[in-house]
């Protein structure tokens, strides 16, 4: 193989802000950062469990503070990211582990829809169990 003279090549540089150049790149970064919001939510939930371990008084102080507008907004924002994670995760799953029915790969959109239906069912079960406890 003939290789060009390296000293004459122009090496382009990828700016760190590449993800602002294209809508699809931006959505990718949003998808990746959804994990940060989810983790932040889980840490907050851990604090709630920790306060529960500290006794009823500590727990109700904590849960009362969750009623403040700030925490409501926090949860609403995290919910948006979490739902975005779920939907993108189900779609990517349909690509990574294609579902075969009768030896044929079913369309990705169909598999995604099945996953979303399962997700809604699981959510309903968690919701129901929590209400019944």
């Amino acid at each position, binding site marked *: 193989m003939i290789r*060009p003279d390296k000293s004459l090549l122009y090496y382009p540089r990828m700016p760190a802000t590449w993800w602002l150049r294209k809508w699809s790149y931006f959505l990718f970064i949003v998808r990746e950062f959804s994990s940060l919001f989810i983790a932040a939510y889980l840490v907050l939930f851990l604090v709630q469990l920790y306060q529960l371990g500290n006794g009823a008084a500590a727990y109700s102080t904590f849960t009362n503070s969750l009623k403040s507008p700030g925490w409501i907004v926090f949860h609403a924002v995290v919910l948006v990211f979490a739902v975005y994670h779920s939907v993108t995760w189900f779609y990517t799953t349909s690509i990574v582990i294609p579902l075969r029915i009768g030896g044929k790969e079913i369309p990705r959109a169909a598999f995604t829809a099945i996953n979303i239906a399962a997700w809604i069912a699981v959510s309903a079960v968690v919701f129901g169990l929590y209400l019944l406890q």
Partner: protein
Amino acid sequence: MPEPTITLNVSRYRPPDERVPTSQVYTIPYRPDWVVLDALNYIKDQVDGSLSFRWSCRMGVCGSCGMMINGEAKLTCSVFLRDYHPREILVEPLENFPVIKDLVIDMSDFLDKLKIVKPWIIRETEKPTSEGEYLQTPEEMDAYMGFSACINCLLCYAACPIFGVETDFIGPAALALGYRYNQDSRDEGSNMRWNVINDHHGTWQCTFVGECSVVCPKDVDPAAAIQRLKVDTAKHWIRSVLLPWGKRA
């Protein structure tokens, strides 16, 4: 009525005199049935013979005419001027690759990567021709067919920001070809590809942006191939941890 025209803003790079790319604007007759490559050839033949670019087949088969058209990785023989007219068209060399001259990029690094994934059928022992060909069922063919259409046009590399950040990444087309041969029922070489595929610069570098599959003109779907390689590699890894005494070819 004056003849309609179209403007192409073309990236130029002329070492050793110029060490950074510049751009040059050409206004040429507009023909709705021309592809961008036709316009470039018109410029080369009629306007400025010094413009350099690669092309060969003019029909989306050879994979040599890939460039960035208005920032998108495209085969210039497959995009029409009418898709852009009357706007001007920005023509740049494929992103993420070193530029040799004007619109010509250096693909030698890709050719090295292609070689190390061993994109050919590997047999432990070849069967003699007297025993006939290696037969496959339609299902066995389906398992790799879609991934075998690659024309090495490198549009997927130009679209991959991860490759842009880390050019050691083996990248979409080469990994997809590794997957294609791993999937082939005639192949027995997947163990010889694991080291490359399981490398940090192999599949694990990929974070599934997915743009490679969007731009691929042959619907190879390298993103799917890489993710499935991850699954295979993880399974292989679990086996090697749980069964260290197991058969290791």
